[in-house]
């Protein structure tokens, strides 16, 4: 890449990702509407797409209130963490053979660490609010974190094992013959569930849990700080979709169409699937989520890891 595009592309990606997250709020509501036999926001502009602008205007003009009983510094700091962490995660996503910000040789680990950082935002936001609902949300977030972080990382090790590299580009290039969703179907299944939990979306939005905890960890948040949390959540959704596509569905690979189009198309379908999950599956209790994580998902991941290791060894060396 040239000097100019070195600067231009990250900037473009930054704007693009934030804009995509904003449009996604509208898109998700429309899609949910379709699946729940209603319309969703359809009044403002063509198909209601200007709803995004009106929502943003409303959030921007709201009183920027910090509750006097909260831990002020952490309260203000928490919502920025999730956005920054999620945006940094995009740095390692390869959009096409030569469209990426950085090709780290520890790309997968970088992604995992960034999404793990984002969890602290929820945790700290919940604790700093000094509010019972927010505290419960923060606690649930912590409980959720310990139950899925382990198998989330481990579920990707099968992919890494087959590729022999942590670099995202190498992982995509290794899928030229066969996408990893076939040999790593167990890994995909586990990572999908962990990904939903990671981005705190239904059915695993336990820290938020509108129906039980009013708004969970962001009960005390309003205006732009609340918008930051939402932005972070939707960025997380896009990031997880990008990761699933890169790691399991061959990233930019595909016939006829240009690589970027293939990548975008796959990410789009993946996002639609996440919305479908939200529309269809009810939320479990958090002890159910924890027992699912430790009793089923972790052993499943370990079995996947051992099997993948054995097969990889057999392919490489024979008996």
């Amino acid at each position: 890449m040239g000097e100019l595009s070195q600067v231009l592309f990250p900037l473009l990606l930054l704007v693009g990702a934030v804009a995509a997250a904003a449009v996604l709020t509208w898109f998700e509501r429309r899609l949910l509407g379709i699946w729940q036999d209603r319309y969703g926001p359809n009044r403002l502009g063509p198909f209601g797409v200007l709803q995004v602008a009106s929502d943003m205007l409303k959030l921007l003009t709201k009183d920027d209130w910090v509750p006097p009983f909260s831990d002020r510094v952490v309260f203000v700091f928490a919502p920025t963490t999730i956005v920054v962490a999620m945006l940094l995660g995009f740095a390692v996503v390869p959009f096409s053979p030569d469209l990426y910000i950085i090709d780290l040789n520890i790309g997968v680990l970088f992604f995992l660490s960034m999404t793990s950082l984002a969890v602290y935002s929820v945790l700290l936001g919940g604790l700093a609010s000094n509010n019972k609902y927010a505290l419960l949300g923060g606690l649930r977030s912590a409980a959720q974190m310990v139950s899925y972080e382990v198998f989330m990382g481990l579920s990707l090790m099968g992919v890494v094992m087959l590729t022999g590299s942590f670099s995202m580009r190498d992982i995509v290039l290794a899928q030229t013959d066969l996408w990893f969703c076939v040999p790593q179907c167990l890994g995909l299944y586990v990572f999908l569930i962990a990904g939903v939990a990671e981005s705190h979306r239904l059915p695993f939005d336990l820290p938020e849990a509108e129906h039980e905890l009013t708004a969970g960890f962001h009960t005390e948040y309003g205006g732009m700080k609340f918008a930051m949390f939402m932005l972070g959540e939707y960025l997380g959704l896009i990031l997880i979709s990008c990761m699933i596509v890169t790691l399991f569905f061959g990233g930019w690979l595909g016939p006829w169409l240009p690589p970027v189009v293939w990548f975008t198309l796959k990410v789009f379908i993946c996002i639609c699937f996440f919305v479908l999950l939200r529309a269809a599956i009810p939320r479990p209790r958090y002890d159910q989520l924890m027992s699912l994580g430790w009793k089923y998902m972790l052993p499943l991941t370990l079995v996947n890891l051992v099997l993948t290791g054995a097969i990889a060894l057999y392919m490489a060396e024979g008996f």
Partner: protein
Amino acid sequence: MLNSLGSQLKTLWTILQHSFTRAETVQYPEQQPYLAPRYRGRIVLTRDPDGDERCVACNLCAVACPVDCIALQQGTREDGRWYPTFFRINFSRCVMCGMCEEACPTTAIQLTPDFEMCEYNRNNMVYEKEHLLIDGTGKYHDYNFYRVAGMAIDGKDKGDAVNESVPVDVKSLLP
């Protein structure tokens, strides 16, 4: 585990099939919903078939009202008919329960299938008699209280009402 996974997949499939079903939404301002004739909406005061006010200001509606949103004062006209000197309904309190309509002995107060009564100013939700009174008979076209009641008014003495026998003179018990 496998059983529940199958159930979840079935749920996903069912919801996905809803991509092709029509939305149930009624697009309200453009698409008006059908309201039954007996829908309980805005309250009106009706007139009898002869064009006079039906309300005799008996206060039963105000007593029946669970939220005390009706206020009225009885007066008597020169021809002997009772009427409300004022009749006030505070619609910001009204819960459209229809108790007043059920309590009304003269079918004067009636609920109509109209619910579009938003106001920017809360004081405008208080309806006076001139706002409530309509020209028609509402749901009961032939009923006229004074025609069937035993009360004497100008032009209709005791015993003149429909199905009313002439009053007995209790002081002359001669056979």
